[in-house]
C-alpha cells in the first residue's frame, strides 16, 4: 500500500486491474485505492509478471502492507510497491540530554547571608509547625527543602536530643515574654478606652485607584493607610508616643509603631517599624510584609521588639468590628482598627452604604486623659479622609 500523502496512514484496496499471470511494465496502473481524499490509482515501478495477490478487494490495510508479488524478469519475486524500510534512526536522545533545564540565575549573595533553597510551600509548613528550617535536610530539586522534608523533620523532632542552634528568636521564649507583659499591663496600667467610627469612602476609592494596573507585589492594603494615619497623628500628640517607667514619662525618639502580628501557634507580637511617619505607603507595605514573614519563621531581631513607641493592631477582614487592645508596657497606648464593614451612614442628609472602620484607643490614664485621646482619634479620622496626603 503506497504512501500517497503526508497524512495517509491506511487505504482500502477497491479494485484490482490485473490478475495473477498478467504481464506488467513500469508505469502501469494495477489497482485502485480508496483514501480519505477519494479514489487514487496505484502505479507500479517494476516489470514482470504478477504472481500472488495478497490483499483482497475491499480490504483496508496500513500504508506499507505488501499488496501483491511480482516475478521480475530476473526471476526473483519482488513485492509490488516495496514496503517502506525503516532508515537506521539514531535512538531518541536520553531524557537527561534533551531536557532543556534553564540554569537558575545565581544572584550575587551578600557574604553574611547564606541562602538555603526552600520551597515557598515548605517555608509555610515549617512556620505553621514552628520548625527551625536550619535543622532540615533538603531532598528536593537542587537540594531544596520541600514539604516532605519539613514533615519528616517534624515527626523526627521529638526523638532528637540535640538542641536547635538559635536562628533569630526562639518562638516559645517570645510567647513567655508576651504572657508576662500582658499580665503586668493589666496589673499596673490603668487603661481608658475610646472609639471612633471612620468613613473610609475616600480611602477605599483611593486604594482601588492606586492598585489598578499594578502587579500583586506593588499593591497596598487598607491597613497600610491605618498605620500611616496612626503614625502621622502622633506628631502633634507626643503624649501618646513613648514610654512610662518607674513614674517617668519619656517621649519616643521618633514614631516607631509596633505592628501587631498574629503568630500561627497563637499569640501576638508587635515588632517596630522605625520612623513609621516618615515612610511612604509603598515602603510601609514592604516593611509590613517583611516583618510578617520574619515573625512567622522566627527571624525577628530583639531590638525590633524592644523599640516600639506605640502599638497598632489591625484585625483585617476576618476579625471583629472593634478591637480594644492591651497596652504593651512600657508603652503608653495601643490603637486598634477593626474589620472594614459596609453600613448605612448619613452623608449630607442622605443615607448611603459606606465602608466604615471602628478605631479604638486604649491609653495609659497616668499619662493622658480622654481629651487627648479624643483629639488623637479625631486626627486619625481626618487623615483617613485625605488618603492622597498620607
Amino acid at each position: 500500500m503506497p504512501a500517497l500523502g503526508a497524512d495517509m496512514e491506511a487505504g482500502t484496496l477497491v479494485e484490482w486491474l490485473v490478475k495473477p499471470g498478467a504481464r506488467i511494465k513500469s508505469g502501469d496502473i494495477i489497482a485502485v485505492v480508496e483514501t480519505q481524499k477519494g479514489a487514487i490509482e496505484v502505479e507500479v515501478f517494476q516489470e514482470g509478471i504478477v504472481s500472488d495477490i495478497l490483499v483482497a478487494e475491499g480490504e483496508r490495510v496500513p500504508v506499507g502492507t505488501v499488496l501483491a508479488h511480482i516475478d521480475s524478469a530476473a526471476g526473483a519475486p519482488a513485492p509490488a510497491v516495496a514496503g517502506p524500510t525503516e532508515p537506521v534512526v539514531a535512538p531518541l536522545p536520553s531524557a537527561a540530554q534533551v531536557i532543556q533545564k534553564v540554569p537558575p540565575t545565581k544572584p550575587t549573595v551578600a557574604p553574611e547571608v547564606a541562602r538555603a533553597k526552600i520551597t515557598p510551600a515548605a517555608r509555610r509548613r515549617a512556620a505553621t509547625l514552628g520548625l527551625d528550617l536550619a535543622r532540615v535536610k533538603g531532598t528536593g530539586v537542587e537540594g531544596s527543602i520541600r514539604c516532605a522534608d519539613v514533615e519528616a523533620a517534624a515527626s523526627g523532632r521529638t526523638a532528637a536530643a540535640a538542641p536547635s542552634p538559635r536562628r533569630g528568636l526562639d518562638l516559645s521564649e517570645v510567647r513567655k515574654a508576651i504572657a508576662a507583659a500582658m499580665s503586668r499591663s493589666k496589673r499596673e496600667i490603668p487603661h481608658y478606652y475610646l472609639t471612633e467610627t471612620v468613613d473610609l469612602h475616600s480611602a477605599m476609592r483611593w486604594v482601588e485607584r492606586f492598585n489598578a494596573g499594578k502587579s500583586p507585589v506593588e499593591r497596598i492594603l487598607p491597613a497600610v493607610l491605618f498605620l500611616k494615619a496612626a503614625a502621622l497623628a502622633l506628631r502633634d500628640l507626643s503624649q501618646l508616643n513613648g514610654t512610662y517607667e518607674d513614674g517617668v514619662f519619656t517621649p519616643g525618639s521618633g514614631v516607631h509603631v509596633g505592628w501587631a502580628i498574629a503568630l500561627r501557634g497563637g499569640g501576638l507580637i508587635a515588632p517596630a517599624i522605625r520612623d513609621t511617619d516618615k515612610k511612604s505607603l509603598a515602603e510601609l507595605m514592604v516593611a509590613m510584609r517583611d516583618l510578617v514573614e520574619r515573625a512567622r519563621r522566627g527571624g525577628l531581631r530583639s531590638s525590633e521588639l524592644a523599640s516600639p513607641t506605640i502599638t497598632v493592631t489591625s484585625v483585617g477582614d476576618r476579625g471583629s468590628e472593634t478591637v480594644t487592645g492591651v497596652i504593651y508596657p512600657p508603652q503608653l497606648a495601643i490603637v486598634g482598627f477593626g474589620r472594614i464593614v459596609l453600613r448605612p451612614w448619613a452623608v449630607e442628609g442622605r443615607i448611603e452604604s459606606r465602608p466604615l472602620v471602628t478605631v479604638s484607643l486604649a491609653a495609659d490614664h497616668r499619662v493622658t486623659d480622654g481629651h487627648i485621646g479624643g483629639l488623637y482619634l479625631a486626627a486619625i479620622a481626618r487623615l483617613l479622609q485625605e488618603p492622597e496626603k498620607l
Partner: protein
Amino acid sequence: MNAPQGSALRMTYREACKQALRQALLADPHVFLMGEDIGRYGGCYAVTKGLLEEFGEERIRDTPLSESAFVGAGIGAAMAGMRPIVEIMTVNFSLVALDQIVNNAATIPYMSGGQFAIPLVIRMATGGGRRVAAQHSHSFEGWYAHIPGLRILTPATIEDARFMLIGALQDPNPVLIFEHVMLYNMEGDLRPEVNEVDIGLAKVRRAGRDVSLVTYGGSLFKTLQAADMLATEGIDAEVVDLRVLRPLDTKAIFESVSRTRRCVIVDEGWRSGSISAEIGMRIAEEIFFELDAPLRRVCGREVPMPYAPHLEDACLPQAEIIAATARELVRPS
C-alpha cells in the same frame, strides 16, 4: 446530527470537525465556508469533503490563493451580518493574513467603540510531525493568544472537535480554532448525552496528586501517555487540557497546581515568549507560595523544524521527555 440514543458514536477527529460544520450550515443560513480547496477538492485534510455537493457553491466557496483577500472578505462578511467560517489551510499560511487578523478582526470592535462586532470563525490546521519541514510545521496558537480581541480554541478531543465550533459561532468576537495535524486521523467516541461544550474552561483529563501536567492540542495525548508511564512508577500525575489559550482558565490551573504543588507545562511551540512562558509567570505571580518545586516546561526545540524524521521527532515534545521532566520534580536524582 446527534448520535442515536444510548450508543456511543465512534468517529475520527476529521469526521467530528465535518459534522460540526454540517450542523452549523444546517442550523443557520448565515453560515458559509470559505477557503482554499474546501469545495471541489474536499479540503486539504478532507474535512469538508462532500459539503459542496450538499450545500452548493454559494455556501461552500473555494477561494483564490490569497489569504489576505479571503480573510479580509470574511471580516467584511461578518461585519455585514453573515457568519463566515474561514479555513486557512494551515497556521503557516495565516502569516500572510496576519495584518487582517490582528489589525482588523481583533481590533475593529475596539476602534469603532463597539459599533462593529466581528463574529468571524477562522479554522486552521497547526503543528508539526508530518515531515513537512520549517515553513509548514509551525505552532503559532500561543502567539495568537497574545492578542487582545481574539479567542483562541485548541480542541484536542473528538468531543471538543465536534462541539467547540458551535460554541465559537455563538461568540460575537473573532474566534480562531486550531486543529493539530496529527489529530485528524485519531478515532474516539462521542458520548451520546453530550451535545454542546463550553469554550471557556480547561478540563482535568486525568486526576492526580503528585504533579500537574498542563497542556493543550496535539500534545495532550503524549502528555496522557507520559502520565500512564509515571503511574507504573507510583507517580500520580494530573493532566489539565487547557482547551482555550485566550482567555486562559487560570482558575483551573491554579486549583490544580495549588493541590499538587508541582507543575510541568507542555507546549509544542518554541519556549521563548510562548504560552508556556505566560502560564509559568502567572503561576509564579499568583500562587508562588503553593509551590513545592520549581516550574518546568517541555517545549518544541528552538530551531526551524528540520525535515529529517528523526530530527523532527527530536524537536517535538515526546512522552518520554514529559515523563522524565515530571519525574525529576517528584523524585529528584
